[in-house]
């Protein structure tokens, strides 16, 4: 049991590390094509990573060890999340079950590392990005946890693999109103958490509007490579989670090689479809003004809260 779940975690990590740059490539390519551009191709993020790893990193004046440590911490936190979440299969590690509270906390470690990195450089932009990033993270937190709560009620546990397995066993629960509300709320939270439109524009380089890009402004070389890969992994892991909650079919329920192969192919497919949808959605959407973002998040919180109360009072 333990070895098979460890094997599953290893497969997940390798697969998602390989796929997440492609996912970002697909998102960008779809967007480019819809906007009438040729686009750099699906493999461009991988080429960027290779280039960054070969380049010389620079250090901002007055920067501390955080500038070196934060990118690694972000990447490791994303990798731990990838290893924990039920992406390829729903066989949890025995001592580290994929408890959503633990997953959220590990994600927050990465968030904090990024925010400290922004402050560390001592530039105005880094502080600005860091401040906005933390404000959004603080306001997303209630939505995420209440949505988790809503999803956990039918199963009686906040362990994600159990939640996904229950949805696999009773497909009707996927379309129940409470679960739909919760998943929509979670999806909005995921968009905010990963810095996508309408909360943050991942392709902007206009200093006054950017959030994520402002924090990584002073990083270069391998530091930047870790930061980019870490954020891509985060996007892939959370999109994969939403995908498996919306359509749990195809995930491996045991760690046998054929099941794993099917699970890997299916989750890759889900990721790429969601990535393309994300890219297409971003073409028709504009970034919200920063001070309108709380309204969006409050809306998603209301959805999550409705999901919880509905499952107690309506059922």
């Amino acid at each position, binding site marked *: 049991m333990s070895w098979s779940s460890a094997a599953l975690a290893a497969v997940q990590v390798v697969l998602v590390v390989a796929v997440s740059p492609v996912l970002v490539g697909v998102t960008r390519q779809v967007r480019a094509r819809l906007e009438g551009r040729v686009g750099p191709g699906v493999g461009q993020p991988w080429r960027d990573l290779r280039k960054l790893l070969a380049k010389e990193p620079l250090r901002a004046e007055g920067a501390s060890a955080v500038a070196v440590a934060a990118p690694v911490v972000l990447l490791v936190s994303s990798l731990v999340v990838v290893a924990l979440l039920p992406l390829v299969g729903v066989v949890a590690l025995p001592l580290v079950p994929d408890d959503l509270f633990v997953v959220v906390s590990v994600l927050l470690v990465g968030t904090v590392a990024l*925010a400290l990195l922004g402050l560390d450089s001592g530039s105005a932009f880094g502080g600005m990005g860091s401040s906005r990033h933390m404000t959004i993270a603080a306001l997303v937190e209630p939505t995420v946890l209440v949505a988790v709560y809503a999803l956990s009620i039918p199963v009686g546990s906040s362990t994600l693999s159990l939640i996904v397995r229950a949805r696999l066993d009773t497909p009707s629960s996927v379309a129940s109103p409470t679960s739909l509300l919760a998943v929509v709320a979670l999806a909005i939270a995921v968009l905010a958490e990963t810095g996508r439109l309408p909360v943050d524009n991942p392709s902007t380089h206009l200093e006054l509007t950017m959030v994520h890009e402002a924090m990584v402004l002073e990083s270069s070389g391998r530091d930047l490579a870790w930061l980019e890969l870490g954020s891509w992994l985060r996007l892939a892991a959370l999109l994969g989670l939403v995908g498996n909650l919306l359509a749990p079919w195809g995930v491996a329920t045991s760690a046998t090689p054929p099941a794993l192969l099917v699970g890997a192919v299916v989750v890759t497919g889900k990721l790429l479809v969601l990535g393309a949808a994300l890219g297409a959605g971003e073409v028709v959407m504009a970034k919200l003004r920063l001070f309108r973002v709380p309204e969006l998040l409050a809306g998603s919180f209301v959805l999550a809260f409705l999901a919880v109360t509905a499952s107690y009072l309506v059922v």
Partner: protein
Amino acid sequence: MTPVGVGLLAQQGLGGLAAALAVLTPDRARSRVGGVACAAVALAGAVTGGLALSGARGGLVMPTALAGVDLTLRPDRLGGLFILVVSVIGLLVSVYGLGYAVGPAASRTAWGALAVFLLGMQQVPAAADAVSFLLGWETMALASTVLLLAEQARRSRVRSAALWYAVMTQLSFVLLLAGFAVLAAVGGGTGFARLASVDPGSPAAAVAFVLLVLGFACKAGVVPLHVWLPRAHPEAPSHVSAAMSGAMVNMGVYGALLVGVRLLPGGPGWWGAVLLVLGGGSALYGILQASVTTDLKRLLAYSTSENVGLMFLALGAALALRASGRTGAADAALVGCVLLVVSHAAFKTTLFLGAGSVLHGTGERDLDRLGGLGARMPWTAAAFGVACLGAASLPVTSGFVAEWTLLQALIHGGSPGDRLLAVLIPVAVAVVALTAGLALLTFVKAYGVGFLARPRSPQAAQAHEASPAMRLALVAGAAAVVLLGVLPGPVAVVLARAVGASSVHPVGLAGVDLTGVGALLDPVALSVLAAAVGVPVLVAAAVSARRHPRRRTALTWGCGGARVSPRMQYTATSYAEPLVRVFDDALQPVRDVEVTHATESRYLVERVRFRQRVGDVVEARAYRPVLAMAHWVGERAPGLQNGSIHRYLGYSFAALLAVLLVAVL
């Protein structure tokens, strides 16, 4: 005599000795002697507390001049836990004080009062009757008031803080006195066994519960009775603020636990709801204020309001769940409450000691004037950083375990059958979540603005590291934060036994398994997983670093300009600005923008001055009107007394009539 009795007696003896030594030693040696003596008191307390926590029975009965009134000290497991927590904090604080206390903070009064303060705090959880409880309570209150004034009694802000503190702490005492009096009258005695014989469903128990909870909430700094906290903690010497914030507010939580678990267990569900709402409000308001304040110690004080709020929320949830028969979740919530106490004690003490080092090294506690301290104060920065992780409840620290337990208890607590719980529990989850999110921002701000980036003032640029004794205390505190987080299993089992909760078991190496709610957490395994995925990353980094082993230093990006001064960095005020805007209605900030135009043209701006003040809305709305009314009555009162003998005779006559009327009716 039992070992616990010997320990209690040793505390009393050592406490008296420490106070005497502080008075008798000459100025030069006082901090050394006082620190060691206070550490001895704390050590004796730690042993006693540890024994009582492990289940050793025994106590100390001290006769008094009043016949029939004996002071009984007989700590149970829960009391032992709080004695242990208070004493370990006392030990850290005494060691820190060895290096920190100089000048007025090292006076006879200051060291003597610290010894008495520690003794009072050790007596409260040891007490087994209301009289010795209240005696310990008052000792603690008086000694802490003296300590508050110890360093800078002449400054008006300190005097006002001491006045607020004295009034609120006496209010708390009066409420407790009334509450215990009600229970004692019904129960027929002041011993806790007699008090516990009161039926929790009776109206008298309800009155006593409300009075006692208000009294304890006042001491614990729960909103809206928190007004003394953000005044008193910043003004006290830092090691004293650590003791006040880490240990003394815990006494309020101990009191609430005493009422809810030991004296009046099995109360109606609305008791839990009251505690839950009180705690939830306190948690949110406290962290919101903490996130926008720039004074480091004030920030920590408000964060104490937040943490105490979470403890009250957990206790309230436990009582409400127990009342509706969900014992598994109730037990988990209760364990969560005590885990929060222990974890808060560890990280808040370290944070206040760290703030003390910053104050000592720079003379500043305004975050807007700090920055870049990590390079000049590496020890303080490391310890403060670890404690910040704990305060932000990130893995793998003590705060994370505590908050995880609380959340697990809450999400397993809701039930379709109970309408009250079906509404309360989701709100509680949302409050805990928002609190956690804002705490994250608060402590990223505190650490990032204070210790990273470049110095924002000459004082910060010339900071110096703390002395060895201070560093020792800081590192010990930070180690406690990590150890409690990595090894929660044994800790949680001991704590569960202290509050009488079953269904908590160790799992894995040192993980905790909440069998009552079917959830487990093993931080060691989580760390192993992180290490397993971290090793390939480090290998890849090392391979990449072979090509470019050293990082060249380059200019910070300034939009093409090289003119990047430290003044252009984000400050603590600007960091919290988005939040101030989002919560504009709740915080009601006062902003002042002053634009000076150049003389040549009014289109050229010479200088812009921005000032922002975020006051305490609760204080302005709830306390100021009462104070204004008291003032108004006070001013009108002399009018009663105009010197006319006829009027005085009239008063006497009216008074006599009133007495007769009361007597007849």
